[in-house]
């Protein structure tokens, strides 16, 4: 349904006008956003701001998966939840707020825990996935599912005053996956959640907002590709180099992959670091990969055990 005709009504023109006049968006880009289906995994500190700005930008379909309920300790950083909605499912609460910002998108609530068994069918309806979760095992699982389904993945994390952001499997098959970047999981005892380590609200907030920007960049590049023009903001991919007329002078560099890291209390808080890229021996995304949709669905991949926790048939432990 990439070719399904979509159009904008007058109210949408008014609403999106300030971003549509940008060369990187335009009418084509706005229609591409409306045509797009984005899944946010997690409606917490990262998911709240990411969802708010994706809704604001006019993404056509926004799915959110989370099985938590709103708690008072969430409210300092999870800005789409409210005092009145403490005790409600987070997916219900966040969609309530998003509709007040923008009633146009179709919002889909997935009020259940993501598991290896349901990951493939949950993710396959979407074009792009945002990992807004908080444990190593879900991060490996989500990345594996995105690789198997050919979906780009925007992944971020935050703890205390630090944050990290990376776009994975983008374009699918070319960019590194989570396993390429982190082939071995950290020892379980070195992993802290926000509940244990604490987190400053705007630190996780900033990472969530930056996730939404990266998501828009991935989706807008598709509009450019459809028009067979080089995205304003990207070096050409291998295919585009083949396709392109050789009119432009100069050589095209291969794409480099970066991670953004943030340390809020440093006097030089942001760094962009260059990543190694795709790994020839990756278990998920290389020619010698062993992970399949079947091994995922039938529960033979134990992410908890892989990450050094107690072996378990499913995630999260009940």
């Amino acid at each position, binding site marked *: 349904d990439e070719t399904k005709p979509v159009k904008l009504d007058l109210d949408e023109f008014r609403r999106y006008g300030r971003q549509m006049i940008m060369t990187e968006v335009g009418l084509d880009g706005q229609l591409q956003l409306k045509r797009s289906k984005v899944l946010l995994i997690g409606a*917490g500190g990262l998911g709240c701001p990411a969802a708010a700005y994706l809704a604001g930008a006019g993404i056509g379909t926004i799915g959110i998966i989370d099985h938590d309920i709103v708690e008072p300790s969430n409210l300092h950083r999870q800005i789409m939840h409210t005092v009145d909605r403490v005790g409600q499912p987070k997916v219900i609460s966040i969609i309530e707020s998003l509709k007040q910002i923008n009633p146009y998108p179709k919002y889909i609530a997935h009020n259940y825990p993501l598991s290896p068994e349901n990951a493939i069918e949950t993710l396959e309806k979407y074009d792009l996935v945002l990992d807004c979760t908080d444990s190593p095992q879900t*991060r490996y699982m989500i990345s594996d599912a995105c690789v198997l389904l050919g979906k780009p993945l925007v992944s971020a994390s935050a*703890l205390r005053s630090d944050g990290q952001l990376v776009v994975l499997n983008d374009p699918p098959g070319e960019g590194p996956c989570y396993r390429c970047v*982190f082939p071995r999981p950290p020892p379980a005892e070195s992993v*802290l959640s926000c509940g244990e380590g604490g987190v400053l609200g705007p630190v996780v907030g900033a990472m969530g907002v930056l996730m939404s920007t990266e998501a828009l960049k991935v989706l807008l590049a598709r509009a450019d590709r459809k028009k067979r023009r080089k995205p304003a903001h990207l070096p050409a991919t291998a295919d585009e180099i083949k396709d392109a007329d050789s009119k432009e002078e100069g050589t095209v560099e291969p794409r480099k992959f970066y*991670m953004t890291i943030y340390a809020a209390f440093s006097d030089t808080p942001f760094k962009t670091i260059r990543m190694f890229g795709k790994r020839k021996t990756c278990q998920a995304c290389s020619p010698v990969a062993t992970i399949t949709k079947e091994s995922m669905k039938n529960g033979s991949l134990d992410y908890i055990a892989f990450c050094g926790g107690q072996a378990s048939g499913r995630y999260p432990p009940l």
Partner: protein
Amino acid sequence: MATDSIAINVELAGGLEILFNNERKLNVELPATTANGSPPNINYLVGHLCDHHMKDSRRELFELQGTVRPGILVLINDADWELEGEGEYELKPKDQILFVSTLHGG
């Protein structure tokens, strides 16, 4: 004897600074040649940091089997150490070495 040592800049992020008394930036002096006659490499630096700069007894949160533990990214002048030879990379004066613990919270 200034020529017998090299000075590099080490930065710690992602919570690793907690192991180093909350210092995020360290100026580190290393001998220009180590016991085996070669210049110090990243693995040497990891041991040196544990021995001389770390203020926490949980060495295993930083070092494992002579190199950094899994879950720590090492950046040599802002590029992943795998682009540069990993633990075997030989340090040059003024190199910027960044150790970042990967985060999972959200």
